[in-house]
Structures are given as C-alpha cells and as structure tokens.
C-alpha cells in the first residue's frame, strides 16, 4: 500500500498491523488489529505529524520515501508522548537531526523521559500557530484525551483536524476512509476505543468539543492516529463522542458473571430470561469466555449492570475482581446495578461486588441475590423474578 494523499499535499504515511491482538500491555484486545497513522505535509517546511510504533518504523519510512527523503523533514509535530505514536521519533531524529519538534510542555518532558534525546523542541500552547508556507497549523492542547500531554493539531487551509488518539479505532484494513469500510464495524471499533480508553474523561471531552465549536473550527476531515479517517461524515463521530461523554444510555442490561461449578451461571440465565420477558434488551457474558474489551464496549450504552460471582475464600472470584477493578477505573455514570451469586457457607461475593460498585459511584438498585449451593426450582424462579424486578427499575429510569 502506498502513501495516501488525504488532501492536497497532505499524506497518510502510517503503518498497518493486522496481527496485533494485545494493546496497552494486555489491557485492550485488538481483535481487528490496528494502524498507527502518521501524516506528512509537503510545503516550504516539510512537516511530519506524529510517527508510528517503533517496530513499525520501516513501514512508515518506506511510505515517506515514496514522497521525500526523511532527512528533508523540517518539523515534527508530536501530538502525544505514547510509544505507539512516538516510537519512530528517535529514528526520524537520527535521519533528520536538525528537525524541530513541537508539542506541549508535558510532551517535551514526557518524550525526554522516554528517549532522553537532545532534540530541538518548541513548546506550544492552545492557539499557537505555525506557518509551513501555504499551510499553517493551529495547536489545541487536549489534556487527558487521553494523557496529560495530548494535543490536537488543526490545518485551517485544508480543514483537517489531527486529534491523535481521540476519534480513533483499532481497526486494520487496507482502506483508509470511513466511506470505504462497513459503517457498523467502524462504529463498533470506535465505541470499543472510547469505552476502554476514554470513558473516564467524558467531562473533559464535552468541554473540548465545546471549545472547538466556540472557535468555529470547520472540519472536512478528522485524521486520527489509529484506524480509519473520517471524511464522509466527521460529524458522526463527534456526535457519538458527545453522547458517550454525557453517559447517555438505553434500556439495555449487561449480565456479567464468573462461575465455579455452574450454579451462578444457572442464576444468570434465569435472571436474563426475566429481563428479556420484561422487554429489556440483555446481553449475557461469562467473563472467562469473553474478551473484557468487548464486554466493556457493550456496557458503554447499557443503563444496567448485573454482576455475579460464586463465593471463593469469602470473596468474589479473581477474574470478576479484576473485571470490576477495571470497570471502576472507567468511572461510568448514570447507571444502575445489582449483584448475585451462589455460595456454600458464609458467602461474601455479593457483598464484595456491592462494595466495589459503591466505591465506583454506581447506584446499587436492589439488594443482592445469593443462593446456597445449587439453586432449586423456587430459587430459579426467584432469579427470574430478580431479573424482572431489575427490568422494572431500568424502565422507571428511562
């Protein structure tokens, strides 16, 4: 695949990795692979916006060389410190040692703490402009979208926004644009990215989008640092972000559980049936058979969470503990939850789940349902009704 000219003299020069399955260590399952998007602007000052993950440097360099010799790069815009975008920066600086790097103050500090390079770095702030010749760039600091150093870069002449990780998706394809791929898959990956990475920062995202609207930025193309470029309908992803950032949900319930000998699973199935019969959309996940990344994505637009675990050592099982620890960090808002599970003697899992829900600021909508050993007919009926009761509470919230 060649470099792709996304606007006159602005080229995608990134790398595509269709094989990567684990990202951010093991915190994100990239079932469709990912891309690292870097962009080159040809002008009096030849400018590279972001780079790629270090091991993919050669792929980016090959694409750059289709257009220019990398040694000719004058400016490098570092929108974000993280290694998947800065990994090839040391190589670029070796090839173009006189290039000047631009980024936020925190980016300068962070890049130094990664690579210890003695590079010519100019700190930029929101509103600062840089002339490249026919093009110019405007910088917009975007702290916690998704690290403190993050920044958006905007090219007003071509109306292209380079928001780095915001609006991105882990989606490796030979296509580069939103109108060339399946729209449902694209939004699925965008939601997965938001839910697993950006969910905690909703309030900042709302303010950032407001800020962009206030300065009347006109956007033809959103060119993020991962996945597909939004050119057909950039408003679609902005509106989706607005909805997610407001924690808007629908009357949908996620039942996620961990089971030892199947009793907790029996309860899960019955209460899911109760929810379904009450007319509420429900998705059921045995968290040991599911990708956490996918379950979290499904929770993003779900009003209710029902979480279950068998009791083990007077507590919930370890995979559920890890799952809830992750969920707590995402700080979901405006949700309703409850807990269930089977136990043998003293119990404990239900209380532990309720405790972490409370710590996460998630409202516990009804008392937990605990069943000793294997549920009998009446306890299965109780599980079914428990689902129905929760469905009523969810409907009352709508």
């Amino acid at each position, binding site marked *: 695949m060649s470099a792709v000219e996304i606007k006159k003299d602005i080229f995608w020069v990134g790398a595509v990795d269709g094989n990567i399955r684990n990202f951010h260590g093991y915190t994100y399952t990239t079932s469709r692979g990912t891309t690292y998007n870097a962009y080159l602007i040809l002008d009096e000052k030849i400018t590279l916006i972001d780079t790629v993950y270090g091991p993919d440097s050669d792929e980016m360099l090959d694409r750059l060389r289709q257009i220019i010799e990398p040694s000719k790069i004058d400016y490098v815009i570092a929108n974000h410190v993280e290694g998947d975008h800065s990994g090839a920066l040391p190589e670029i600086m070796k090839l173009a040692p006189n290039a000047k790097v631009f980024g936020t103050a925190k980016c300068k500090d962070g890049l130094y703490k990664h690579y210890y390079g003695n590079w010519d770095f100019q700190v930029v702030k929101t509103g600062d402009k840089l002339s490249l010749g026919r093009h110019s760039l405007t910088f917009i600091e975007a*702290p916690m979208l998704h690290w*403190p150093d993050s920044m958006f870069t905007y090219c007003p002449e071509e109306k292209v926004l380079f928001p780095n990780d915001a609006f991105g998706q882990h989606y490796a394809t030979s296509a580069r644009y939103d109108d060339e791929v399946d729209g449902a898959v694209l939004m699925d990956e965008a939601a997965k990215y938001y839910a697993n990475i950006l969910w905690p920062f909703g309030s*900042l995202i709302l303010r950032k989008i407001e800020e962009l609207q206030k300065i009347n930025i006109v956007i033809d193309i959103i060119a993020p640092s991962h996945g597909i470029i939004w050119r057909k309908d950039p408003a679609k992803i902005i509106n989706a972000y607005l909805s997610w950032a407001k924690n808007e949900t629908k009357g949908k319930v996620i039942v996620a559980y961990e089971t030892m000998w199947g009793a907790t699973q029996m309860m899960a199935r019955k209460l899911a049936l109760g929810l379904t019969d009450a007319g509420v959309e429900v998705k059921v996940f045995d968290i040991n058979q599911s990708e956490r990344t996918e379950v979290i994505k499904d929770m993003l637009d779900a009003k209710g969470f029902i979480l279950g675990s068998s009791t083990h050592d007077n507590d919930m099982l370890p995979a559920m503990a890890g799952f809830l620890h992750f969920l707590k960090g995402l700080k979901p808002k405006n949700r309703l939850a409850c807990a269930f599970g089977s136990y043998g003697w003293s119990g404990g899992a239900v209380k532990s789940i309720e405790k972490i829900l409370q710590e996460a600021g998630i409202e516990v909508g009804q008392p937990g349902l605990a069943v000793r050993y294997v549920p009998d007919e009446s306890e299965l009926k109780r599980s079914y009704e428990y689902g129905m009761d929760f469905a009523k509470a969810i409907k009352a919230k709508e």
Partner: protein
Amino acid sequence: MDKYRCTVCGYIYDPQIGDPASGIKLGTAFEDLPNSWACPECGAPKESFEKVKGE
C-alpha cells in the same frame, strides 16, 4: 487543611505544597484557590476535585 484529589486524573492538591507552577503559594487552602485555577496535570476545573478522606 485538607488535600483534594482530581477525579479525572488523580492529581492531589496538597496545601502544604501549593501549586508553584501556577503561582499558588504553599499554605493556600483548596477553598482559597481562585475559580480560574485548574488541575495542573489535566486541566480539569476546581469542581472536579473531591476531598481526600482519612488523611
């Protein structure tokens, strides 16, 4: 004087340190920070902070 934690990024405002980079002197209580003050790590506004309990 109480410490306050940024609910967005986890930064802790400690009055015993202040926020010298933003011109906030040591000994300034969280309540006395100007409304224009924002989290020095992530830029979240003052209302995004909560009191640190049990310290």
